């Protein structure tokens, strides 16, 4: 079953599949950042259906973005900051 897939993308790095894969890998950021056009998205998704390695790269890239947005803690703004901004503005007018 899976050998059918692996066969397809293990044919060798210099075959025609390669251009698709590199095109897709260049689109990765556009896709995960929601910046791809609908045509690019369609092309991307079609390719992922038949290419395990691009599918995996996509998973990884999504995971990375999710880790940053989900796990990086926000620092807490000192309470005095807004006050001192207002004060500075009034005094430097």
């Amino acid at each position, binding site marked *: 079953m899976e050998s059918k897939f692996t066969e397809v993308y293990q044919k060798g790095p210099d075959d025609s599949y390669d251009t698709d894969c590199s095109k897709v890998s260049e689109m990765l*950021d*556009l896709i995960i*950042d929601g*910046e791809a056009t609908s045509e690019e998205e369609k092309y991307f998704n079609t390719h992922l259906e038949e290419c395990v390695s691009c599918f995996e790269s996509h998973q*990884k*890239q999504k995971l*990375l*973005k999710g*880790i*940053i*947005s989900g*796990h*990086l*803690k*926000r*620092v807490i*703004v*000192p309470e005095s*900051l*807004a006050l*001192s*901004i207002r004060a*500075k*503005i009034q005094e*430097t*007018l």
Partner: protein
Amino acid sequence: MSEQTGKQLSKEEKDARFEAELLPVLDPLYNFAYRLTLDEDDANDLVQETYLKAYRFFDYFEQGTNAKAWLFRILKNSFINEFRKKSKQPAKVDYSEVEGYYNSEDVEGEGGVASTTDMRTESVQDLIGDEVASALNALPVDFRTVIILCDLEGFTYEEMAKILDIPIGTVRSRLHRARNSLKEKLEKYAKSMGYNS
């Protein structure tokens, strides 16, 4: 650019709009400043300076446009023009300080998370958070910046291009390289923790 440019705001109008449109960005702005400088006091100074400039140049700000992007742009310019020069050394990277800052209530002083045997989800979450922070802080500031703007603050490529004064193509390539570099650092960490990437 419009005929409105000549229209001067009264002080009351200006103050009211400053409160309503600019001050609500304080939280993301402070976080951005902190991620750039990696220092609380420096972040404070940078944010204050940014708001003073914003107030002074308020007439250039078109109502209804993106206040957040405008402020981020001012802050980033201040950081580059004055701040980076002032503090001659590259941005400080002191992880212990950063960690202490995060968990100010439960710093135990000693060795920290590694010695903890309790792997409740919460501490695992903290651990990941700290590791992500360290990996991010270790990136060059230009790389750090695009990651923060994109993944943390959700700016579009176009907004990022305006904030950073670079073409969208440069935003994309910088983001790409930044992510590769971050991935490398985090994969090393994942392996050291016994995960397979």
